[in-house]
């Protein structure tokens, strides 16, 4: 005996009928959008314009309505219904999102790949309507190394490879050396990094030609600035956070004043001051490189933010932890190094990662003092008379590079969080 079909209220009886008719309608809807997006074919052109335009949506809603069967017994179908197909409104939103994705895939792929050009060496090679990757290809060296002389770029490469290799030292320590790891990363590694960059990239000694920092630029400068700012702002921020909670009024007021000052001014102003005002306060014959000044300025600026993030972690710790450490005879520094900071820093990994990501993305602002990192070089290239009109490609390129850097950092911070997770 055939059960009565009620299309307004699909249920488990006649499950297959509902399922097949629903999926059929749904796939017709998707197929219609797919054809119109990729092949510019409108299979419903015989209908009035508006109906033809809305048809996939209507069919899709009907289809999703039919497969919305409670407790169907099919795991994936239940999951689908629960998450994206709970009622007609959700079904509509789901469809609109699916259609938007399908619609956008076609133009995006054609701009990025199908109609794009990468061959040739001049602007004239770019004939397609898509992106002109030739522009990126030709300028790639400048985007990575800035104005650093081509024949000396091996110096940047070698120092970066060495720095990355040295950063991995922490993965193979023997038991004996393990306790020096923190010292290595906090003190020794930054010093090695500075020496490498000073002697190898800057040069001037050991028969290496001196390259002034004004010629540095591009992605390598982004890395150098971010790297040193991250390394410096963290300990400074940590001391400021401790200082702000200190019992000693002088230390506390200085910390509060410092933090509130740097948090209150825009970074761009700080950079201007570092290049324009700061030298005025220095003795005539004292010279400090503008890159160094910029790194100090950004580090102090970000340190104020890091300090407040760390202070949040310090405040989250129960007072009992301080009591216990004190009752065991630990003084201020021992208590903080072994008991308080390890716990507080662990709590604020997400906040620190946030600040660090913001720092990396703030580095383009150093253009105000004439240093051109990746985005700065893009702006320079885009105004080159030979290559006018390719700003879009440049910004897309920069966006992708920054996204990769930031995503890697956020993944790393997430790993750290998992690694140091302990339950209370």
């Amino acid at each position, binding site marked *: 005996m055939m059960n009565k079909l009620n299309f307004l209220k699909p249920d488990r009886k006649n499950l297959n009928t509902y399922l097949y008719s629903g999926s059929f309608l749904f796939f017709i809807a998707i197929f219609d959008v797919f054809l119109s997006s990729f092949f510019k074919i409108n299979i419903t052109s015989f209908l009035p314009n508006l109906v033809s335009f809305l048809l996939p949506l209507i069919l899709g809603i009907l289809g999703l309505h039919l497969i919305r069967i409670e407790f169907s017994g099919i795991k994936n179908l239940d999951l689908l219904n629960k998450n994206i197909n709970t009622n007609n409104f959700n079904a509509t939103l789901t469809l609109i999102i699916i259609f938007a994705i399908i619609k956008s895939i076609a133009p995006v792929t054609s701009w990025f790949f199908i109609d794009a050009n990468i061959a040739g060496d001049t602007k004239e090679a770019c004939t397609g309507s898509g992106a002109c990757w030739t522009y990126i290809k030709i300028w790639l060296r400048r985007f990575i190394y800035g104005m650093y002389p081509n024949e000396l770029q091996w110096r940047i490469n070698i120092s970066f490879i060495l720095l990355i290799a040295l950063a991995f030292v922490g993965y193979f320590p023997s038991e004996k050396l393990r306790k020096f790891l923190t010292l290595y990363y906090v003190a020794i590694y930054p010093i090695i990094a500075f020496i490498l960059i000073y002697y190898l990239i800057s040069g001037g000694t050991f028969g290496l030609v001196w390259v002034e920092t004004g010629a540095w630029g591009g992605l390598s400068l982004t890395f150098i600035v971010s790297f040193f700012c991250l390394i410096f702002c963290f300990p400074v921020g940590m001391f400021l956070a401790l200082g702000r909670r200190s019992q000693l009024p002088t230390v506390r007021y200085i910390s509060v004043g410092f933090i509130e000052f740097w948090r209150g001014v825009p970074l761009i102003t700080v950079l201007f001051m570092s290049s324009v005002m700061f030298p005025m306060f220095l003795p005539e014959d004292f010279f400090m490189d503008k890159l160094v000044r910029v790194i100090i300025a950004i580090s102090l600026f970000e340190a104020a933010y890091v300090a407040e993030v760390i202070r949040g972690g310090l405040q989250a710790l129960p007072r009992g932890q301080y*009591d216990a450490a004190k009752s065991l*005879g*630990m003084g201020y520094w021992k208590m903080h190094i072994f*008991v308080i900071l*390890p716990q507080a820093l662990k709590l604020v990994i997400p906040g620190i990662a946030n600040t660090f990501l913001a720092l990396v993305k703030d580095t383009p602002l150093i253009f105000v003092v004439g240093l051109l990192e990746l985005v700065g070089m893009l702006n320079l290239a885009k105004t080159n008379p030979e290559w006018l009109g390719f700003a879009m490609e440049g910004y897309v390129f920069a966006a992708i590079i920054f996204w990769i850097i930031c995503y890697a950092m956020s993944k790393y911070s997430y790993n750290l969080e998992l690694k140091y997770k302990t*339950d209370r």
Partner: protein
Amino acid sequence: MSEQIIEMNEVNKWFDDFHVLKDINLTVAPKQKIVVCGPSGSGKSTLIRCINRLEVHQKGKIVVDGIELSEDTKNIEQIRAEVGMVFQQFNLFPHLSILDNCTLAPIWVKKTPKKKAEELALRELEKVQIQDQAKKFPGQLSGGQQQRAAIARALCMRPKIMLFDEPTSALDPEMIKEVLDAMVNLAKAGMTMIVVTHEMGFAKEVADEVIFMDEGMIVERANTKEFFANPKSDRTKVFLSQIL
């Protein structure tokens, strides 16, 4: 009176306007076990927290093991290393294993070599019967085990005095006994102990003297038998009738 290990003389303390401790006079001889009881808010915890200067007293004089408590930091760390404390909330360090909890202070405060500190810690953990939990983290232990670990941690500093601040109040009833057993054993081993607790059974078993506090004052101090059999003050009688 140099044979007294703790001497408190006219000690007063205020939290802002609130007078928590009023003219406290208290002497404790070595190896003496003293239980402090009283209604909540009577200043018991504040009193013992003053002994290792987790709270600072404003008036009067406290001398612990011949050293007077003052603003001098070096003194305080020295005294704290000699005075162990066990808290109501255990306050183990959650980021360190039980063994590391026990060795941290001996290694960094007393400069004991790591190997020796670990041996000592294992011995103390064995005494409270959780040596098999040494590699675990505090979060993985039950409340009773955590509190026993906290006792072991304090003992690893080889203290002369042990302070207990309501050590069983945060525990489930079935775990109270294991902690009290550990404390009884410690008392039998001859430790000087000051215990703030509501466990009157424990007081009867180990305490030499019981102190009753109310409203920041020591109302009554008597030896244990006398205290329970024959309380002098009316307030003590009311308190005892409520909790016994």
